[in-house]
Structures are given as structure tokens and as C-alpha cells.
């Protein structure tokens, strides 16, 4: 069996008609436990409804800052963490995907038995949490991962030969001297050599350890590799080496990559298509060119503005102010509106935003005793005394609350120490197409 298959094997004609990984409404929630009995009091919605597909041979970049859910999503896709909602498919054919689209468009109650059976059949063959036996093995062999921390992703007590050769041993593909030779060939394909076989990870530099990780990932000749911030911990010159290597390997072996990173410059270089994540959702998605030259979401714009580009002369770095919402209780509307510089009244202002704004008015915050919440958009604020209540009412009516929030204020009424506020409720935002597979969830661009 040849060690390095040509690019063709992973990209043959039949293969081109399927996606490697398909995500449909994927959710990953973590329970929040509290109290002596550790009861579940809430859920951290780390990944909250993500759908996209990764096609053979391409590199999809997943970009976002800390807490956006990209690493969690990467772990779900690589099978390390089970999803709590939605589905992840492996090698789902295009026609099967189309069938799923059709059937899922029909409300659940109206689907026929045949249709339900069809979904079950497709699921059984492709959903990674339902695969078993040989199908699971195929998925497991073809879906590999390279981690961010090159130090903690290699067992410090194992020799390089054992680390890189382990996948071959697990699947009983080789042993003894044949195994050694395969490992040497893998090491050489990542720029290391025979002399590195019998060494421990701590004897290598960060860049070399990352090469070892990559060699390990390539051992079984996989189709797809999740790269979770593979160069974030490396120096610039080493990063360049590793990125060049990753590209070379992709060309040689027809690999498909999911490239997770917070570094826009790197993602731009390495990706064909990019998805931008914020607080568990994809806010914009499109080709690298589209996103960088004509971005259609204020968060993407903010990321671009905050990332200094070494080649440009005239950028001024701009950051974002405002607080990130609680991932256990995210806004029903656009999750970015609390920090968005161009937010509108229709972006989903909630009671929580009003309370947060009060935080900036020290004296007024102290006077707030209780919030009687009817919905996220309608509540009564109870204050300590009438004066504070009056001050708050005036401030909200005439004062310095953000114009967008003011625009969303449907009703503001004071009764003694209680102030009833209600804001216009909104529908949850959805990703919509703004031109040839370029998706965004910002209503300024989608007009929804």
C-alpha cells in the first residue's frame, strides 16, 4: 500500500459530489450546575445553531475571538465532544443533502412515515454520532486533528516513533520494521528525519513539535484534518514554515482542512471560504475574497479594523467597546448589538441592555432593587426611592442612552418607585444570502 496517495484518490469524480463534513443546526450546550446537589440551573450555549458544509479539497476557515465557540465546534466535528443538538454528517452526498433539505422544510408533524424513514436511513449512514463498526472506523480514520498547544498534544513519555506510529498500530496497518519505515517516511514528509525517531517531545522546538503532530495526523492518510489554531503559539518565522508545509501537504494529498484561528491574516491566506463566529453563531460566511474585500457584517468589519495589516500603510486600529452578553443567556435578536457601532433600533434591544446601561450610571445602579421580568423585552424595574426612579425615567426619555436603544423603546412609564419599560421584540436573526453563497445575519445587509 502506497504511503502517499496522489491527490486524485481523495478528489476523484465520485467524491466531488459529496461534502466531507456537513453541519446542520449543530448545538453544543454545557450545563451550569449550582448548589450542594449540583442541580442544572442553566446552559452555556457555546455553539448555538451552526450549519455549513466543507467540500472535498477545500480549506474552510473558522474565525472568531475567545468564547465564540470555534474550538468547541472543532471538537464536535472531530468527534471528541458529542453535540447536544443538531447533526454532523460525514461524507453526505449532495443528493442526500438535497433530500434532507426538502423533508426538513416540511413541518415535523406533517412528514410522512416514508420521509421519516428516509431521514433515519440517511442519518444511520452518515451521522457521526450514529455510525458504528466499519462506518465509524472510516470516519475515525479520515478525520484527524492538529492541536494548538504543541507541547500538551504530545505525550511527554512517548518517543516520536511511538507517537507518530500509534495510529498505524491501532488499526494494525503495520508493525516492526515496516512501521518504522512508514514513520520515517511520514517524518520526512513534514521536514523531519530518521534521526528524530527516538527522541522525546521536550527535546524539540515548538515548530518541530507541531510538525510531529502533523505527521501523526497524516499517518492513516486521512481525507480531512481539523487544524485548531495550529500556529497561534509559534513565532512568525516558524509559522511561515508550518503554513507553507500545510499548503504543500494539501496539494500533494488532496486534503481537506478546517482551519480554526483568531488571526485574520493567517485565515485569509490559508482559506478558500471563511465562517466568522460570534457567541456561538456564524454571523457571516463566504469566500475569503468576499469577506475581506466586501464584508457584510459589522463584527467582521470590527475584526478587520482591529487586525493591523503589515502591508498597509494607513490603518488605524480600532477596537470594540461594550460588554459581551452572557453565553448562558444570549440576546434573542442579534447577539452583537451590545457592541455594534452601527446598531439600529431593530437589532434586538432587551431589558438586559437597559440594566447594563444603568451600570454606567453609578448612582442610579445602586438604587435598583429588583427587576420584574415578564419577557426579555418587557420588565418592571423597582427602585429604592421615587427620585431615582424619576431620574432614570428622565434619563431614558431624554438623556444619554444609546440612540438605537432609545429607538427600540416602545413604552416607558413610571409608577412611584417602579418603572415599566418595554422594547420592541424581534425575531431571531438568520443567515441570509446576499449574493452567491455569501451569507450574513446582519439586518442592515439582509434587509430582514
Amino acid at each position, binding site marked *: 500500500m502506497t504511503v502517499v496517495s496522489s491527490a486524485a484518490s481523495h478528489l476523484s469524480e465520485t467524491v466531488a459530489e459529496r461534502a466531507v463534513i456537513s453541519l446542520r443546526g449543530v448545538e453544543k450546550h454545557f450545563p451550569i450546575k449550582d448548589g450542594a446537589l449540583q442541580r442544572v440551573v442553566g446552559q452555556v450555549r457555546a455553539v448555538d445553531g451552526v450549519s455549513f458544509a466543507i467540500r472535498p479539497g477545500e480549506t474552510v476557515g473558522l474565525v472568531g475571538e475567545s468564547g465564540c465557540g470555534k474550538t468547541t465546534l472543532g*471538537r464536535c466535528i*472531530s*468527534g*471528541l465532544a458529542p453535540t447536544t443538538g443538531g447533526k454532523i454528517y460525514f461524507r453526505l452526498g449532495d443528493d442526500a443533502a438535497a433530500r434532507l433539505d426538502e423533508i426538513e422544510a416540511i413541518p415535523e408533524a406533517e412528514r410522512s412515515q416514508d420521509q421519516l424513514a428516509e431521514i433515519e436511513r440517511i442519518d444511520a449512514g452518515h451521522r457521526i454520532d450514529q455510525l458504528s463498526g466499519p462506518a465509524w*472506523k472510516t470516519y*475515525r*480514520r479520515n*478525520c*484527524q*486533528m492538529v*492541536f*494548538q*498547544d504543541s507541547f*500538551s*498534544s*504530545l*505525550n*511527554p*513519555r*512517548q*518517543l516520536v*516513533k511511538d507517537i507518530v506510529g*500509534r*495510529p498505524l498500530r*491501532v*488499526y494494525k496497518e503495520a508493525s516492526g520494521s515496516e512501521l518504522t519505515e512508514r514513520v520515517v517516511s511520514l517524518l520526512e514528509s513534514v521536514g523531519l528525519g*530518521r*534521526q*528524530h*525517531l*527516538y*527522541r*522525546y517531545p521536550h*527535546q*524539540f*522546538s515548538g515548530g*518541530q513539535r507541531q510538525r510531529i*503532530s502533523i505527521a*501523526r495526523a497524516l499517518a492513516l492518510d486521512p481525507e480531512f484534518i481539523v487544524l485548531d489554531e495550529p500556529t497561534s503559539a509559534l513565532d512568525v518565522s516558524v509559522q511561515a514554515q508550518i503554513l507553507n508545509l500545510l499548503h504543500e501537504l494539501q496539494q500533494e494529498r488532496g486534503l481537506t482542512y478546517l482551519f480554526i484561528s483568531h488571526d485574520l491574516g493567517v485565515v485569509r491566506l490559508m482559506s478558500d471560504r471563511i465562517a466568522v463566529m460570534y457567541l456561538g453563531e456564524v454571523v457571516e460566511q463566504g469566500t475569503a475574497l468576499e469577506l475581506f474585500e466586501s464584508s457584510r457584517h459589522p463584527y467582521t468589519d470590527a475584526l478587520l479594523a482591529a487586525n493591523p495589516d503589515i502591508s498597509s500603510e494607513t490603518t488605524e486600529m480600532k477596537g470594540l467597546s461594550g460588554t459581551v452578553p452572557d453565553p448562558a443567556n444570549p440576546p434573542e435578536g442579534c447577539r452583537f448589538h451590545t457592541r455594534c457601532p452601527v446598531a439600529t433600533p431593530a437589532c434586538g434591544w432587551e431589558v438586559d441592555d437597559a440594566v447594563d446601561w444603568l451600570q454606567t450610571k453609578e448612582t442610579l445602579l445602586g438604587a435598583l432593587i429588583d427587576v420584574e421580568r415578564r419577557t426579555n423585552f418587557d420588565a418592571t424595574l423597582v427602585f429604592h426611592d421615587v427620585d431615582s426612579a424619576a431620574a432614570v425615567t428622565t434619563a431614558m426619555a431624554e438623556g444619554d442612552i444609546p440612540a438605537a436603544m432609545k429607538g427600540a423603546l416602545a413604552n416607558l412609564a413610571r409608577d412611584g418607585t417602579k418603572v415599566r419599560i418595554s422594547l420592541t421584540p424581534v425575531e431571531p436573526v438568520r443567515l441570509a444570502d446576499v449574493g452567491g453563497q455569501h451569507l450574513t445575519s446582519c439586518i442592515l445587509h439582509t434587509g430582514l
Partner: protein
Amino acid sequence: MTDVVGTPLSAAPVEGPLAVRLRRFTDLARQVLRNKTTLAGLIVIVGMVLVAFLAPVLTTPNVPDPYQMPRDWGALNEPPGTPGHILGTTSDGGDVLYGIIWGSRVSLRLSVIVVSVTVTIGVIVGSLAGFLGGKIDEILMRIVDVFLSIPELIFALAIAAVLGPSFGNIILALSMVFWVKYARIIRGQIIHVKQNEYVDAARITGDSRFNIFLKDVLPNSVTPVMVQATLDMGSIVLVGATLSFIGLAEAGLAEWGVLVSKGQVGISTGRWWASTFPGLMIFLWALAFNLVGDGLRDVLDPKTESR
């Protein structure tokens, strides 16, 4: 200091797997022995173990049971320096030197058996709890909590008392009680090690849970257990001596605690040797293992250096 650069790879010669592992071991050993006190402790231990092994050669074994102190009714309470009894005799004519030498055998047997058994039980229980987590973890840890709620010494005492006075029962009692700390130690380490990405990487490789435990989790979790085991080799003998001192071993046993107890009576009348020499041995044994254990800890787990 993250700015200091280490040595690159190119300079080192190419070695095979065994040579590499051997060198890692010898490097570690050299590091441990660099510490003078650790070295001293190791020498004492080696000395004592040798004495224990050579007991039948160094003395004439008592018949029928060499572990019983010989009684020489013609030489009661002889002071040290008497011909034939360098360290003196006890109140029933037992040679103190004999007692010390055979006592070291008893102590060695005690510590090796108890530490082996407790480490095994503790590691198994702790590993199951730490690696499998969930309900199993909770159940096992509650059992551990029950054990911990009773002071170890009293617990062992109670068991030994119930089983009857014999040194074998002391060994049994200690084995039943002292495994708990190993369970906790290794559980803590496993939970910590499990979070490393190389464990995730092993899962992605597709290896079985058992293999992952054996190859990735366990080897990286055992160092604190090794340190604790070394320290316990010393302290178990102390505990055993305590129990036998208060009479839970057979009377007349050639064991340090029994001897100390026997010789107690004579102290007020100036007959210090029958208690002091065995007592000194207990002290030396415990001290030696403590020094080696500390030395090991400093090398294997530098964050908890005793300095």
C-alpha cells in the same frame, strides 16, 4: 524565563529506543543522587536491606522460629559490651543485636507488603474513579470518605485488635487502611492529566479507552504515587512499631516495636540499651526513606520542592 534558549537537536548523536530510555533513567537517577542527603538516605537503606537479607549469616538463627527472640537465661540484662552480646541483652536474655538484625527483616517485610498492597488497591480504586468519572467516581469517593473519617492509626488498631495479636494481622490491618491516600493522589493526577490534549489526540487516533489509560494517562500520573510510596516505606514501619509497641504483635517477636516496649521497664533502672537501640533503628529507617522520598520529589515534581 521564557527567553532563555535551550540546546538544539542537531548536536546529539542518534540512539536507538532502548539506549534513549536507559539514558533518561540514568539522567534522572544522577539528578536524584546529586543531593547529598538523598544519597545518605539511600546508603542507609541499602545497608539496612543488606543486613535484613544477610540475617541468617550475620547471626545464628534461633530455633525453631528465628523471628522469636532467643532467650538466654544466663545473660539477663547484660549491658552493651558484654562478650557475645555487643549491644547487651533484654530482660529475658534476648540479644539486642539479634533483635535489631532480625527486626530489620520484619520491618522490610512489613513495609514491602503493606506498601505494595496499598499502592495497588489505591491506584486501582483511584484510577477507576478518576478515569471513568461520573457515578463510579462518586461511589468510590464516598467509600474513600468513609475511610478518611476514621483516623488511620485508630482504624488499624481496631482491626488488629479484633483479628488478634500477631504481626501478620498488623500487616493485614495496615493494608486495609492505608490505601486511601493513594486513591486520592492518583485520582487527582488523573483528572488533571486527562485534560491534556495528548489524551484527546489519542482518542482521535481511535485507540481504546483502556489503552489510552495505560499509555497516556497512567504513566503521566504515577510520579506523586512513587514519591508517596517511598515516604510510606518509612512511615509504615513507624506505625507498625507503634501497634506492636502497644501489644498487638506476638510477645517475644524479634521486632523493633516489641523490643522497645519490652525494654521500657528497664529505663527507670538505667538499663537503656534494650529500648534505645531498636528505637534508633526505627528512627533511622524512617529518616532514610524520608530523605530519599524528598529527593525524589524534588526531582520528579519540582513545584513542590521542600526547600
